[in-house]
């Protein structure tokens, strides 16, 4: 399947992918949408990055998307790449997978036998491997809209538009001054997107504070498994994981307290 093509075509050029048949799904224009329905934001799989960046409902409910989109590749690439392709690529360094994981999203997979809804947890089964079977297609991403939400994405990259050295996606749902629920996911520090469940558990039921966020950062830093590579050694990446967790949670808490945030952005 090819949508934006900005993962598959580079892989084909590198001979990492050698498909016998490529099906272009760009004509399925009904799969490009962002709408509010049944207390969820529903995003069609063929929605492009620039549309996510410019979306008013997303900016209002989940400003984490605009945070992430501004640092995903560059505006010209964002005119083609899609959210469905980003998630289905199942690359551990990819940003939207962590965003959707932190927001407790689920995905809709369609096939000849109908549709099934799969949590982000179950969607990525390994590196570059998803729960999508043969003859199935990822068609929609669903994000529950809950009260008291605040969310933010924090990323460190070597140069503008690069893959993350480390990135952290954080979501908080406040009930008054108590964290009713928390979502935390990290990019580029494991074989797949790292869902920091132990840090989430720490956060639940507590009052937001710098000390709490530092503790959550320390746990996230322990629970990820970065590899040394050209982007840095392991201790540096663990340091970033802790620091970026603090920054994402701090910003998410500010946004949750402030309520709604300003509308869509145009950065094309």
């Amino acid at each position, binding site marked *: 399947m090819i949508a934006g093509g900005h993962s598959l075509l580079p892989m084909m050029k590198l001979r990492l992918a050698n498909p016998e048949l490529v099906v272009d799904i760009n004509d399925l224009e009904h799969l490009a949408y962002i709408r509010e329905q049944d207390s969820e934001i529903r995003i069609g799989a063929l929605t492009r990055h620039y549309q996510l960046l410019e979306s008013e409902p997303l900016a209002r409910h989940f400003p984490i998307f605009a945070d992430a989109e501004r640092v995903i*590749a560059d505006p*010209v690439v964002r005119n083609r790449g899609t959210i469905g392709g980003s998630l289905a690529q199942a690359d551990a360094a990819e940003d939207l997978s962590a965003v959707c994981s932190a927001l407790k999203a689920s995905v809709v997979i369609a096939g000849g036998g109908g549709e099934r809804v799969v949590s982000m947890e179950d969607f990525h089964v390994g590196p570059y491997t998803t729960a999508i079977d043969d003859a199935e297609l990822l068609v929609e991403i669903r994000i529950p809209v809950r009260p008291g939400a605040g969310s933010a994405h924090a990323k460190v990259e070597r140069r503008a538009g690069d893959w993350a050295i480390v990135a952290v996606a954080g979501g908080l749902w406040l009930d008054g001054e108590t964290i009713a629920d928390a979502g935390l996911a990290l990019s580029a520090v494991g074989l797949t997107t790292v869902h920091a469940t132990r840090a989430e558990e720490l956060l639940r039921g507590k009052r937001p504070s710098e000390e709490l966020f530092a503790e959550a950062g320390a746990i996230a830093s322990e629970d990820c498994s970065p590899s040394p590579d050209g982007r840095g050694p392991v201790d540096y990446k663990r340091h970033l994981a802790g620091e970026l967790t603090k920054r994402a949670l701090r910003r998410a808490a500010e946004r949750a307290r402030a309520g709604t945030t300003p509308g869509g952005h145009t950065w094309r």
Partner: protein
Amino acid sequence: MEVTININGEPVTREIEPALLLVHFIRDTPGLTGTHWGCDTSNCGACVVQMDGLPVKSCTVLAAMAEGHEIRTIEALSIDGVLDPVQQGFHEEHGLQCGFCTPGMIMTARALLDANPDPTEDEIRTAISGAICRCTGYSNIVRAVRWAAEHEAAQPRRS
């Protein structure tokens, strides 16, 4: 497979290998070599053309995916020998030296001004962040785009 792509208002039909990239289709068949083939990894932006008005990297689009879409290349910008204001701006402000990145820069900047006729320096730098220039250090390119914005504001562009 046979593919028909509308390039600069003209339908171009050709029998191609399915894996042919749009950048090669544009350069080979109608011979529009203004679109440059640079890094081939969607990093450098030399191959940017407009597809239905949006700038895209033509090294990362299959020619077959462009069937039925409107492609606009650098060759379509000047009309009857009169340069587009963005082209004129690159001339006035010395927005190029070797010229390799220029077609992609200009097609990216043209799309920016079509969407946002009065961009700030930051907005220009963001818009061209997917295009690499090894000569100018970008300052003259930013000035060139501002030149075009200011001159278009003074004298509205023909469509």
